[in-house]
């Protein structure tokens, strides 16, 4: 039960892979280089894994308005009717509706100068997840999968990457890193219960007995020349079976939390997702993404965001407080953002449209110095006045927080090396 590894790609029988790589053409050289590099890295990697660093991404799908969240411009034409409130961090004001988050502001850093060029949802979400522009020829791995590859402990029973919420965020998969780092998806509606197909529906005793029969019957195919296939299949089935029978599956079960805790996070889908994220991180999962829909406020942005904040504010603040209470805060980086921001100009439907030029990200935990604001936007919100932060900068910052080398290269299937983060500099001010 303890020897269960979610991503054990080295242990698989990959002789045919190396056979291909070493025989065919120029990519073999590059691939061989990577192998050597990995060997060198392995000692350090083991140390990293022991540190138990982790990340929670709170992804606001649709692109949240910066004005109605963490960069309000009260009293200006573009700012609209939204007022600002003070926070526990002197001098930092955020939009009304985020009162609970305001209480945690000493532990949260706001980046008001996030900037990209992509104003289309899917392409922008892809970039915010992978750091790369989408390309038909390479499926880039998400930052979460890359991080898991570097940090996850391989002998845990739970998957190393979990995403909670509806499918749809482009680029959140493992890309060419393969199934070993593919996120385990829990749809928003199912949050709280043990996921589908994880429970042994015929009872543990009969399940184990069937497993025994399957194992014996596999012998025939193995003897007839299918041994490689059978061995790989057996490993996956053994792991799956261990998960099915594992007490760790209780991690997914929120009924084990007190009513008070659940109350604190709020009874929304997103609140439950945040609570589950905390449980998963506590149980050793490396990367959890919790998605929240509905931020694409082309109309009625003021009422719309008020409603969303009513769910997001308690969940976000409870998550930070809870991580602190449990001593997980310093090792766990929490990031809140969306794929882009919204237009300063309020449109005729009292909405705001897509605006990638400046938007917000929040960072907390993982060694981030809270109670500060990075970057400043113009009075009318129409652009950045200082300290612009692009996605590679943001990703480099994340890597610094988690002690992951952003220049580490992963090899794409055609032998093209791709860095975890292509360019960018960490925002050093964030680290005190």
């Amino acid at each position: 039960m303890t020897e269960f590894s979610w991503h054990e790609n080295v242990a698989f029988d990959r002789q045919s892979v190396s056979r291909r790589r070493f025989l065919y053409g120029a990519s073999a050289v590059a691939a061989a280089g990577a192998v050597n590099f990995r060997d060198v890295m392995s000692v350090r990697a083991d140390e990293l894994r022991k540190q138990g660093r982790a990340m929670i991404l709170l992804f606001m799908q649709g692109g949240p308005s910066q004005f109605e969240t963490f960069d309000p411009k009260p009293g200006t034409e573009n700012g609209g009717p939204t007022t600002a409130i003070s926070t526990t961090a002197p001098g930092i004001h955020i939009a009304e509706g985020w009162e609970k988050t305001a209480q945690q502001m000493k532990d949260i850093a706001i980046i008001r100068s996030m900037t990209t060029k992509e104003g289309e949802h899917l392409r922008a979400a892809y970039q915010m997840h992978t750091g790369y522009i989408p390309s038909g020829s390479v499926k880039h791995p998400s930052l979460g999968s890359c991080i898991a590859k570097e940090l996850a402990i391989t002998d845990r029973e739970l998957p190393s990457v979990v995403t909670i919420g509806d499918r749809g965020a482009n680029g959140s998969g493992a890309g060419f890193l393969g199934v070993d780092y593919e996120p385990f998806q829990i749809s928003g509606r199912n949050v709280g219960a043990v996921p589908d197909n994880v429970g042994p529906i015929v009872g543990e005793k009969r399940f184990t007995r069937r497993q025994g029969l399957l194992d014996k019957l596999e012998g025939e195919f193995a003897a007839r020349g299918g041994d490689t296939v059978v061995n790989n299949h057996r490993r996956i089935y053994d792991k799956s079976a261990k998960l099915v029978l594992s007490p760790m599956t209780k991690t997914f079960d929120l009924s084990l939390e007190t009513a008070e805790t659940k109350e604190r996070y709020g009874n929304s889908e997103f609140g439950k997702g945040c609570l589950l994220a905390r449980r998963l991180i506590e149980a050793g999962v490396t990367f959890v993404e919790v998605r929240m829909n509905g931020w694409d406020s082309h109309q009625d942005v003021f009422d719309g965001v008020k409603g969303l904040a009513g769910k997001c504010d308690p969940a976000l603040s409870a998550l930070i407080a809870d991580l602190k209470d449990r001593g997980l805060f310093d090792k766990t980086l929490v990031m809140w953002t969306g794929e882009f921001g919204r237009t300063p100009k309020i449109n005729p439907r009292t909405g705001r449209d897509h605006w990638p030029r400046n938007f917000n990200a929040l960072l907390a935990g993982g060694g981030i110095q809270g109670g500060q604001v990075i970057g400043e936007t113009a009075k009318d919100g129409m652009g950045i006045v200082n300290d612009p932060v692009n996605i590679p900068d943001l990703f480099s910052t994340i890597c610094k927080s988690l002690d992951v080398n952003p220049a580490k290269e992963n090899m794409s299937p055609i032998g093209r090396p791709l860095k975890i983060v292509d360019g960018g500099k960490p925002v050093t001010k964030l680290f005190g």
Partner: protein
Amino acid sequence: MRRPCVHVGFVFVQVALFAIFSVADEPQVPVSAKGLSPKEVALEIDRQILAELQKAAVQVAQTCSDEDFLRRVTLDITGQLPSPQDVIAFRQNTDSKKRDVLIDKLVDSSEFGLNWARYWRDVIYFRATEQRSRFNQEEFTAWMAVQWNQGTGWNSTVTAMLTASGNVEEHPETALIFAQGAIAEDVTAEACRVFLGIQLQCANCHDHPSDIWKREQFHQLAAYFPRITERRVMKGTPEYEIVSVNTENKQGDFMRDNPEMFIRAFDRDNDQKLSMKELEAGPKRIGRRIPATLKDGKSEGDNVEMQNEGMKEAKASAGRLPAKAIERLFAFGDTNKDELLTVEEIKAAQPPVNRRRGSTEHHMVDLKHPDSPGAIVDPKFFVSGETLPRGQSDEERRMAVAKSFTSPENPWFARAIVNRVWAEMLGEGFYMPVDDIGPTREARYPAVLDLICQNFVANGLNPKWLVRTIANTEAYQRKIQSRPASENDLPFASATPVPLRSDVVFNSLAQVFGVTEAEMNGRTVKAGDKKEAKDKPRAFLQSPRFLFDALFGIDPSIPKDDVMGNIPQSLMMMNSRVFRARMSARGNTQLSRILGEHKDNRDALRELHLLVLAREPSTEEIKICSDYIAEVKDRPEAFEDMMWSLLNSSEFISRR
């Protein structure tokens, strides 16, 4: 290593020479101008492969059993599992040519086209940069199935895909372009990867580090595609179309490209210059005098028809200019500040160009100045060096590139698909991975590949011919064998057990459960959700096949060896409630029927094996199962467990 394009005649000479020097009792290979038949080419393939294997002293596996052949060839050609009746009938058939006959029958069945269309669906949509491109995947699959079932030449099919326009659901051959958002660079990279097997896209941003391709070559190829764009059509539900943009949709671009015409349209005082007042007054009435004006003002080499088109465009778009635009125009263009614009001034004015979509020429971004549009690059095909002058219409460009792609002089076109289909059927190709071939990669058995390619071309690039030929080879029909110990061993000495594609596993499950596709529903996969369903009301997105594919789908371009099962898949196979109900020994299920019809456990076991694995159980398996029944002491329960074990076996999801 670059191999020159081998001409058809050369191969015939080669074949003929081979026949002369081979042992006397071997049949003479007939040479015909129309290309050889599948059987003839298969024989020649096997002779050459065997010769190389023997030279390398590699042990060659025997021919596989009838049972294994039937399952393998039925799964590969039609994506279906043979029924127990099929297995028994095939075994009892004493015709010495029964395998050839079966291959012909399967290739002529309608499932042939559907199965391979689903393969191409996965090739294209797995790399889609936009998820909404799945909108037309069902239509695309149906269209591709027709092409394969009709034996349409692959050159025609690819030409249709490269030149496609229109509503993406009415014209599903737009699939590849739509999947890449009609963005020139992305379409270029994918077309090259899928249809030529060449990975040119690294050269998008830099000269290829491990290949010979230059950045300019990539952009010259992209220069065939700058005029395609994707447009959203608003009807109750969002629809998309692929359209050609042959003039910039901005006034400014028409103006810059046709300064004389632009001036004429507004020039009321006929001084060949435009004042602010003239522009503000709007265009002159351009009615019946246009043709005359055009004729008079026609410059050498101009195409009257194009100018007419252009004038219509001028008329349509050269309405009253907004005051701001006029202001900008003067700010930009009036370089000598005489408050009059001349042809030269308009020509020199260079407002920013929209280089992402719908730009009429392709611009190669200067990497040192990524925010500037970069220099215009003209179309040139990197394999043959064919070129196209600047200013050609989208239709002309795409026809030209399709012609270059599919030309018999372009060896990579045939090699790419032959290698793909061979790899799909044998588990390993001449080149691996299948989408990274090209002159700097080395093929195994290069002569065999060229032999197939030449005859494939001579047979009109008919995919039916190709699949028939491969299925007829001894190389395809060998027994499976464990992986060779040495990585240097030549492939094709035995068959390789590889995972089946998602659709094939899905078909097999439906067949084993004895249910229709629609009845495969239930809570098997939690993939789609209501929100998405509301946004994308395409029904297939909620179909059991689609949901199953979300979990079991594999990118057909990656080597089979790299395909591993994963935990959510095995969890579903093990614990799905829907599957459990379908495997029940009670109620209206296949197992219940088998147990009712066969009171003897051995007979029931035999029937169950035939149903799930399309073969008889071995003596050892009968013993294991009999012991299990004795241990469980409950016949229905024991049989449910056995069916569960067979369905969860690696054999069920693999080709053997």
